[in-house]
């Protein structure tokens, strides 16, 4: 039951893009076409889940025991950068087709703040999910990270669909490109606000 609440909360109620403002740059950057949006979402999904696993363990077994949590930001970003590189190399060797699909998005992910944001949130914030406020254990953290990245994918795919239609319309010159995209995201966020308070 709790895992179910985590999933609903992370995908709809606290959607990472529309409610938490994380990962907006790539969200605006690659949502022009449905196909690239799907590719990016899959790459993000992969990296967020993996990065959260590794940073959670590093935080628990390295930073906290040695009392050096002030190095958290540095350690996490280095882990993410290294991880992205490794994923890139491994994919290139083992699955060229997947590499072709995700390859160009991987380098962009290092500076996608959604990845670092989720990694930091998971180890520093207390969550409730219907029960007492508590820090997440490893299982919950993994479910949360995976569901959050699904939420990212959902927002991305919906928005790419909207943008494909926008591109065909006659938009006033000053509104062209990012401004009209931002206004559309605002309306999308308004719709997602209907979920707020559903899961605490």
């Amino acid at each position, binding site marked *: 039951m709790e895992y179910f609440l985590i999933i609903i909360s992370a995908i709809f109620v606290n959607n990472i893009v529309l409610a938490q403002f994380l990962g907006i740059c790539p969200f605006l950057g690659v949502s022009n076409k449905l196909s690239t949006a799907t590719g990016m979402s899959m790459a993000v999904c992969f990296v967020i889940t993996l990065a959260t696993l590794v940073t959670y363990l590093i935080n628990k077994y390295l930073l906290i025991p040695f009392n050096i949590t002030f190095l958290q930001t540095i350690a996490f970003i280095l882990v993410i950068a290294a991880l992205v590189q490794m994923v890139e190399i491994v994919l290139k060797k083992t699955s060229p087709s997947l590499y072709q699909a995700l390859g160009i998005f991987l380098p962009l992910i290092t500076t996608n703040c959604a990845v670092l*944001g989720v990694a930091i949130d998971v180890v520093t914030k207390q969550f409730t999910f219907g029960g007492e406020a508590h820090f997440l254990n490893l299982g919950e953290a993994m479910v949360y990270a995976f569901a959050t990245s699904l939420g990212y994918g959902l927002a991305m795919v919906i928005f790419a669909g909207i943008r494909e239609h926008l591109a065909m319309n006659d938009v006033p010159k000053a509104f062209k490109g990012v401004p009209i995209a931002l206004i559309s995201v605002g309306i999308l966020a308004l719709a997602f606000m209907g979920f707020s308070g559903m899961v605490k």
Partner: protein
Amino acid sequence: MSNRFKLITDGFVKNNPTFVLILGMCPTLATTTSAINGLSMGLATLFVLVLSNIVISAIAPVVPDKVHIPAYIVVIATFVTLVQLLMQAFTPAMYETLGLFIPLIVVNCIILGRAEAFASKNGVLDSACDGLGVGLGFTCSLTVLGAVREMLGSGSIFGWNFLGGNDGMLAFVMAPGAFICLGYLMVLFNKFLKKS
């Protein structure tokens, strides 16, 4: 001299990080619930940007090509952690308000972007001026966006309430208002300030 002055002023209009380069959107949207929050976030970013630009331009000649990105990220992360510690110590309330977005300055694309595009190829003083200009432009945009959202959303400006305690349109303090306000501000910027 005039060249350096131009580097600073360019950050406001021609290279405005928010409205022209469209970089660093996450903190721009997330922390501008009021003018003062936007201003604080802008200043924190400015601090990191200037210092990391200075250090990176100084070390760039001796950093091997293949590891320059990790090396720069470590430098940036150091200054971000420094800001984190200083804010925790001296402005704890603001630190709580901005929360997660202080450590996330590390992945703000403006900073790595300026390091790559400018600081790694230019001298220390020029880089400092560039950081100052872009940082001030960013601060300025965030303060304006924060002020607009605060006026519409809470009926106040810099905490001074001009609606006499009545509520504003709450949606503007929340997530949708952030996107919509930034969208319309960008339209105004395109219309009146950007030279085509």
